């Protein structure tokens, strides 16, 4: 490469770097603005100009959110429902993915097409059906009512099937020769050989379930049964909406997901890549 070409390549690289940094700042700014605003008194938040740092930082809104609202209960509801959705989704997808990938039974192909087809139906289309069904079953305002309609995750089945398909058939045959039952083959051979997928899917499902808003918002009307995402909408009083309080509750709601992401960054990226690959 000549010196000119090298210089040109460096320049292009530098421009791309600057562009990505700008994009990152644009993407991060609302998060920064939300956190900073939660540390400002309300009158500072509503000032008509931008202040990047609080003039008089305060934790008043955090004290309010933690003591005057039911945020503790909402946290528990979110944890129970998100963990429930994660465990049930991942385990049922594991079974379904294994069955479609490894077992031969009548109707296997139509079942697979059905799962692929269900992948193309947006949740919003089904939401009224879900509501009527849950209402008829008396499950509105319950954890089960929040969890059940969120268990439809064809993408997790597709990911599992793809990974189980890639396990060389020798392993299955060796396990069959070793007298292993189908359950033993699944849990002692296939799942341990694909721990990365299970971890990645668990994390991403947990994040989806934690962030879910539309369905929990419809399924729950009692304040004490709300998840944190729905609960934030309740942080107002007789004098109306306080932006700083709202942003404080939003910050608190996002905290666990941010922690999960920071702790399992690589796995989350892997999971997103997996599901993005499926979505094509």
């Amino acid at each position, binding site marked *: 490469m000549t010196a000119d070409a090298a210089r040109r390549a460096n320049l292009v690289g530098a421009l791309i770097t600057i562009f990505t940094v700008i994009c990152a700042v644009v993407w991060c700014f609302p998060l920064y603005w939300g956190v900073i605003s939660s540390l400002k008194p309300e009158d500072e938040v509503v000032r008509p100009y931008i202040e990047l740092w609080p003039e008089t930082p305060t934790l008043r809104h955090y004290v309010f959110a933690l003591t005057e609202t039911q945020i503790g209960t909402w946290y528990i509801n979110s944890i129970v429902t998100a963990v429930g959705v994660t465990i049930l989704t991942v385990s049922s997808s594991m079974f379904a993915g294994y069955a479609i990938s490894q077992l031969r039974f009548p109707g296997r192909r139509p079942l697979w097409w059905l799962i692929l087809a269900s992948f193309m139906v947006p949740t919003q289309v089904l939401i009224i059906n879900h509501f009527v069904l849950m209402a008829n079953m008396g499950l509105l305002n319950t954890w089960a009512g929040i969890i059940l309609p969120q268990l439809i995750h064809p993408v997790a089945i597709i990911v599992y099937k793809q990974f189980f398909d890639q396990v*060389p058939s*020798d*392993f299955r*045959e*060796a*396990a*069959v*020769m*070793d*007298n*292993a*039952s189908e359950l*033993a083959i699944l849990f*002692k*051979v296939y799942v*341990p*050989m694909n*721990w990365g997928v299970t971890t990645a899917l668990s994390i991403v499902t947990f994040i989806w379930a934690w962030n879910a808003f539309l369905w929990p918002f419809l399924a729950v009307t009692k304040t004490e049964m709300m998840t944190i995402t729905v609960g934030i909408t309740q942080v107002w009083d007789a004098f109306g909406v306080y932006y700083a309080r709202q942003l404080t509750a939003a910050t608190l709601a996002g905290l666990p997901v941010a922690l999960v992401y920071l702790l399992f960054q690589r796995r989350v990226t892997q999971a997103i890549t997996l599901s993005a690959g499926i979505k094509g």
Partner: protein
Amino acid sequence: MADIALTNVSKSFGEVRVIDDLSLSVAAGEFVVFLGPSGSGKSTLLRMIAGLETIDSGTLTIGGRQCQALAPGQRNVAMVFQNYALYPHMTVRDNMAFGLKNIHMASDEIARRVNEAARILEMEALLDRRPSQLSGGQRQRVAIGRAIVKEPAAFLFDEPLSNLDAALRVRTRVELAELHQRIRSTMIYVTHDQTEAMTLADRIVVLNNCRIEQIGTPMEVYSNPASRFVAGFIGSPAMNFLKVELSGNDEAKLARLGDGSKVDMNIRVPASGSYELGIRPEAVRVSERADTTSGKATVVEHLGDRTLVYMQLADGTPIIAQDGGRSQVSPGDVVNVSFDTSELHLFDADGKTYHADRQDA
């Protein structure tokens, strides 16, 4: 150890018949090798015995017990796979114990069997390692150990040495032969490598096009091939085949080669006419005089203990002859050869085979 018998077994994949009405019996303690080219049905046959492929018709008995309807785990056979199929997340010890845990064997008995197999295979130091920490040869031994701990009625090997390098393959082959001598268990071994077949087998089953071409001891298969295919498949370099015209009476026949040379045949064949003459390179000796015929050397391979001379007869027929290790033959030389007439084979157009000193094969 147990005997294994396949009686009139057939197998099809869709419309394609891969095993056609095949019968075979393996004696208890015998080492039988299924040998054949790719697609000959040898692996399918092994997998049918293992239970990994169903048997469409016919019966399979192992130790006198009908097994064709039993699940693989219930047939009391152990299989060593080509790619070893060691569970990567388990230690060597867990890999070996997996099958025994599945049948809920007492843990002290599992430990005893695993330690005993590790001792036999000299891999006690490897028991707590994972497969990724082992060399190819060590993985191979673990795969065999996993089979040994089951104390099966028979061992089934599916091309177990094909992933090893040449030197390790030779060493492991010897170890396998020693193992068979030591445990005297019934073993069925699939390979397309004739050296493995010749060195390991008590009997070789040569398969081609989904049927058995010949069953016999290695020397029977080598010396008295039952068909043109077996004659060409066994032996390296391969047997020479020459078109000949046979004349003469029942007692003494004369074969005329393509270049006009004549060979006295001490083979009794029912009729004169066109045949294919088979003779192994070691029976075509480079000689001082043109006892049989002569040709022009094209390639000379010095193998140390012997020399292979690739030559062409006057009519262009290629033939391989053998000379001593210190052969002076060079490419381009005209070379005289003599045929050992006790090592001749004749193949007719109908697939019948005739050997020297024998009427029929």
